[in-house]
């Protein structure tokens, strides 16, 4: 079964056309990366898949649910980590995970979240005292603790130092192994080739190339995805 099917998706903000008729499919259990420069339309696409934005044209299916009709059902099986997301600062990490767990079934997932976040004793400190890396770990934990069928992560490692970024990539790989499908975005073309099973290169609202990172490098005789991107654009 396909986890995501996007067909000729168009999104306009008033006159600005941010996404210009893109199509792609993500298989269940895959880590799929949407790679492209700033302003390419990654966030817009992810927000649509995450039920936040309305579709201008085209169609999107998540595990066979039609996004236009079944948004409420889709929200039960996805989780979304927004680009530069935040948490309620006056809560502690544990309280925040508990608050979110309240929207799902149970208390057990809080324990799982605490394990993913791996903040040690700091989990009981106020979020406002956390560093950027700690906050991001907490938010990733929040997004993954309920074992969603589909995790949508918008630039999950952007702005983090090498160590923190690596930690988060490991977490993502682990949950994918456990069966969660991952759709993520990044403008960092180097990190992504090690993480994703398949990628789509997006530029100015259009998907310009798609495939397995290794295949793409071979196809364009490139050393890395950055070179692939330059090749394709030129």
């Amino acid at each position, binding site marked *: 079964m396909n986890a995501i099917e996007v067909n000729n998706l168009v999104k306009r903000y008033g006159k600005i056309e941010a996404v210009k008729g893109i199509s792609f499919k993500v298989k269940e259990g895959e880590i799929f990366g949407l790679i492209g420069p700033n302003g390419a339309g990654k966030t817009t696409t992810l927000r649509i898949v995450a*039920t936040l934005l309305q579709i201008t044209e085209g169609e999107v299916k998540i595990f066979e649910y039609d996004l236009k009709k079944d948004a409420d059902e889709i*929200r039960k099986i996805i989780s979304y980590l927004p680009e530069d997301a935040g948490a309620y600062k006056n809560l502690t990490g544990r309280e925040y995970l508990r608050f979110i767990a309240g*929207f799902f079934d149970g208390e057990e997932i809080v324990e799982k979240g605490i394990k993913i976040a791996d903040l040690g004793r700091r989990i009981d400190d106020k979020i406002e005292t956390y560093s950027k890396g700690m906050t991001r770990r907490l938010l990733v934990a929040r997004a993954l603790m309920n074992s969603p069928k589909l995790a949508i992560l918008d630039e999950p490692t952007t702005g983090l130092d090498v160590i923190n970024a690596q930690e988060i990539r490991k977490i993502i790989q682990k949950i994918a192994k456990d069966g969660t499908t991952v759709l993520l975005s990044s403008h960092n073309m180097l990190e992504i080739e090690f993480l994703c099973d398949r990628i789509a290169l997006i530029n100015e609202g259009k998907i310009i190339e798609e495939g397995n990172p290794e295949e793409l490098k071979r196809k364009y005789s490139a050393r890395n995805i950055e070179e692939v991107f330059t090749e394709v654009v030129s």
Partner: protein
Amino acid sequence: MIGGTMEEAQKKPLIGIVDNDNGVFSSITKNVTKSMAEVIYDESGEKVDEGLEILKEKGGTALFLMPENFTYNILNNISAVIHVYWIMKGAGIMDMVSSDVVENIMYQINQKISEILIEKGKMNSSFVLSPIKKEETTIFKGKEMEGISPSTIGNILSSQSTTVPIIMMIIIIMAGGMVISSMGMEKENKTLETLLTLPVRRSSIVFGKIVGSAIVGLIMAIVYMIGFSYYINSFQQSMEINLAGYGISLNFFDYVLIGISVFFSLLSALSLCMVLGTFAKNYKSAQTLTVPVSILAIIPMFIIMFKDFDTLPFTLKIILFAIPFSHPMMAMRSLLFKNYFIVIAGILYVAIFAFILIMIAVWVFKTDKLITGRIKSPRKFFMRR
């Protein structure tokens, strides 16, 4: 409207006189009255009821009745009585102005007569200084109340019925501010997007935020009510007058109506704030957005303090009725005089108002306007600073 009200205040009051004495002093009294007021009814005999009818029709303020023994008593060193029948139109501060003028006429009559008595060499000083005794009956909203003046009634009513407006205003501003800033905080902390992808219905988010602040608002209301009722009780005991003795009091059903009115008014305030809150970009802009709500809450409070709904010009009546926060503020006074129509009509209006606003808020949450921020004109209007 202020101009109109001022003119009204400067106009001479319309007075009626029933003179059953037809003596020297009753005609002196009449002359003083005529110099200060416009006397539109002047008869003798059993004419009080007829005079009051005419005064009511023409918007008169009071009727003076001088009994047969008026001049006789004064000549015999006995206080003479003028019975004043007040036609009270409203209990707002502005409604009281004409009765103040009439009080002044009474004072001048007393002065004039004591001057004459002193010239004639009358020496019983306590009598000479105050030869006229005033007895009064106030007619207000179809009730005749003996032994009480409009200003006393006005004082009691205003202490009772300014409580609700003040409390309502505080609650609307505070609870409404909570709703708006919670939206501002969601945007500032970047938590709104996460919230909107959780498996929770949009309407539940709207209701959750509204109910949360409504509970805080109602708790505040109760705390303030208890505080104010202590204050008012001490105030009323010192006045030693109880309007309940005149049948002006609230029963259990009235309190239930006030409660319902407060509830719907709070609900519409909070849903209005919810809609406004969707324009908030961050905590600071949320604070700015509370201003229109505060103004809407303050306007009816002031109008009601100065004038009764009944005595307002037509356009102001419409404005007051249209502002949803007016209704609980007006409810207490209307109910004291068993004017159920305006109270129930107000509750219906406010309930519909709240319902529509909640629907709008839910609709905004169902579209992607909260994320894209594409609700243009009001933002431009409020945000430019």
